[in-house]
């Protein structure tokens, strides 16, 4: 069967197009401003973290990280992330699947609810849990009677982290899944695939890079969260301190080298996040442009 090819592209430059480009000095000037701004507000602080951390040599740096309290903070941060990221992954995928692919009453309410952690200050989020589960809180009496500790303990930190990072995966996936529409799922259904098969074989492969992107953002926030966690933590050294809280304590004790050494861990995490994120972004873009 004969199928006509696309239109031949006119490679000759249109003189009117050339006028759209600014003269070279203007371009250099604008680029320089952007770069200077980035240097001042991003690269210099990032470099400063590492310079300060290594100021007293590698040994002091490693000692600060290996110190038991610092180690406990890293452990707690990893635990909080390890619980909240999978939880929010499952929730985010489920919520965006429901929102993008089905119609049900209360759909816009659900979208609004997902956004709440974004619109509420993290400190307020922390306070909510203190009000609910603190000694004077609604469930405080019952909890202490059954000797369950939530606030000023690990469960509180995990709860606060889950709450704050709750929108990341869903917010990433909803627009992506909405733009992809329901056609492919309907096609799978007509071809005899049930809901689960259609989800695993059609929906999930289509959103995998979006999922990864959401997980990265969610993880970065889970590890870096300060405000909400600070309120519920109680700052018990070696027990309820996460990395950001530990950095603050060290800094307030004028132990700058140790503070920056621990902070450099978060900075490293940020760099890794950035790298994986740009890869995922690139893949998502590729996917969208392939349509």
């Amino acid at each position, binding site marked *: 069967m004969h199928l006509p090819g696309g239109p031949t592209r006119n490679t000759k430059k249109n003189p009117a197009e050339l006028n759209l480009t600014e003269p070279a000095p203007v371009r250099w000037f604008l680029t320089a401003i952007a770069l200077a701004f980035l240097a001042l507000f991003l690269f210099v602080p990032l470099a400063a973290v590492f310079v300060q951390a290594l100021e007293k040599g590698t040994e002091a740096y490693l000692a600060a990280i290996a110190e038991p309290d610092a180690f406990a903070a890293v452990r707690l941060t990893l635990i909080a992330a390890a619980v909240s990221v999978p939880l929010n992954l499952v929730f985010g995928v489920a919520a965006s699947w429901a929102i993008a692919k089905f119609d049900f009453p209360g759909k816009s309410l659900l979208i609004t609810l997902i956004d709440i952690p974004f619109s509420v200050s993290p400190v307020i989020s922390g306070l909510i849990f203190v009000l609910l589960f603190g000694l004077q809180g609604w469930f405080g009496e019952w909890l202490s009677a059954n000797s369950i500790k939530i606030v000023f303990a690990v469960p509180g930190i995990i709860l606060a982290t889950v709450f704050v990072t709750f929108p990341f995966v869903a917010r990433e996936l909803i627009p992506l899944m909405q733009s992809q529409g329901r056609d492919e799922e309907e096609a799978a259904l*007509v*071809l005899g695939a049930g809901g689960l098969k259609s989800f695993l074989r059609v929906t999930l492969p289509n959103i995998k890079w979006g999922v990864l992107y959401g997980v990265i953002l969610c993880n970065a926030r889970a590890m870096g969260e300060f405000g909400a966690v600070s309120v519920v933590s109680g700052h018990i050294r070696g027990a309820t301190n996460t990395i950001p809280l530990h950095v603050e304590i060290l800094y307030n004790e004028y132990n700058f080298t140790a503070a920056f050494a621990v902070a450099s861990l978060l900075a490293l995490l940020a760099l890794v996040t950035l790298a994986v994120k740009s890869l995922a972004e690139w893949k998502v873009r590729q996917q969208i442009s392939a349509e």
Partner: protein
Amino acid sequence: MSIQIQNITKRFNGFQALSNVDITVPSGELVALLGPSGSGKTTLLRIIAGLDFADQGSILFNGEEATHRSAKERQVGFVFQHYALFRHMNVFDNVAFGLQVKPRRARPSKAEIRDKVHELLQLVQLEQLARRYPAQLSGGQRQRVALARALAVEPQVLLLDEPFGALDAKVRQELRRWLRKLHDEIHVTSVFVTHDQEEALEVADRIVVMNEGRVEQTGTPEEVYDKPANPFVFNFLGNVNLFHGRVHEGAARIADIGIDLPRQGEADGTAVVAYVRPYDIEINRTRQGADEIEASVLHIQGAGSVARFKLERLDTREIIEAELTRERYRELGLRTGEKVFVKPRNVRVFTADYQI
């Protein structure tokens, strides 16, 4: 497998998409649902497929109640308007999907699936593109992949939603001839939705003309084209000239022409509209009889298989479109601005109470 659509009604948020639709699709036929956008044809197709469910009425497959069967259970092939190919799968995997998701005991072996897919790709002439992804295919190729994918599960019914809508004119024409040929080979009961009357007339065994959620007429292409049941069908299938007139002494009077009414007993003065196809307009240089309308030639388009005339009535200034054979056009030798006498043939009169 035959399909019976009985008394189907569907509303969307207060919008009446379908009202009391009754259609029977005999086994092995290729049926077109033809209508303007918003006429409910796609909704009806989705209800047949089980992708939407009717508020009222029932769907029978081979006389068996299927109204509440899910899309998964209906075993129909559906070709989506925008193909809905799985974008992360290559052509082979797209076509194989329906076989691969079958429950284990019903699933063919890998080798059987491979043979089946290659057989289908051969049928749609895409064997050499099996490893390509949908994004790397042209519109016509995607359409054929979608068709092969739908046929892979050996459906009893094939449903196609605007199958050629998104393609350019030349590919569209080739593909619709090809679809007709394919249907003659495999004889699966097929229903396709289109808003293109030419497409429906060329491809279908039977046409269902729809408008505003109702069926206006059902019949073979010849029936709906030559004997339109009402002004809507007349208008929708091809160009048409309208002549307004009134009932006078039991006959319709259009200008000075008297035409018998389709039914008796219309009161004098009732408004009527006469419908005449452009090729049923006869043009003469001189008056041949009393029942002719005077007009002047506004425009002539002489190139093509027929000569197209645009005429202006001298009495009402209304435009009449006419088509003449090339011989007649040469014989008359008309120029723009000349005065002619127009005689409509095969006039269909409808009383004006029928809104279009």
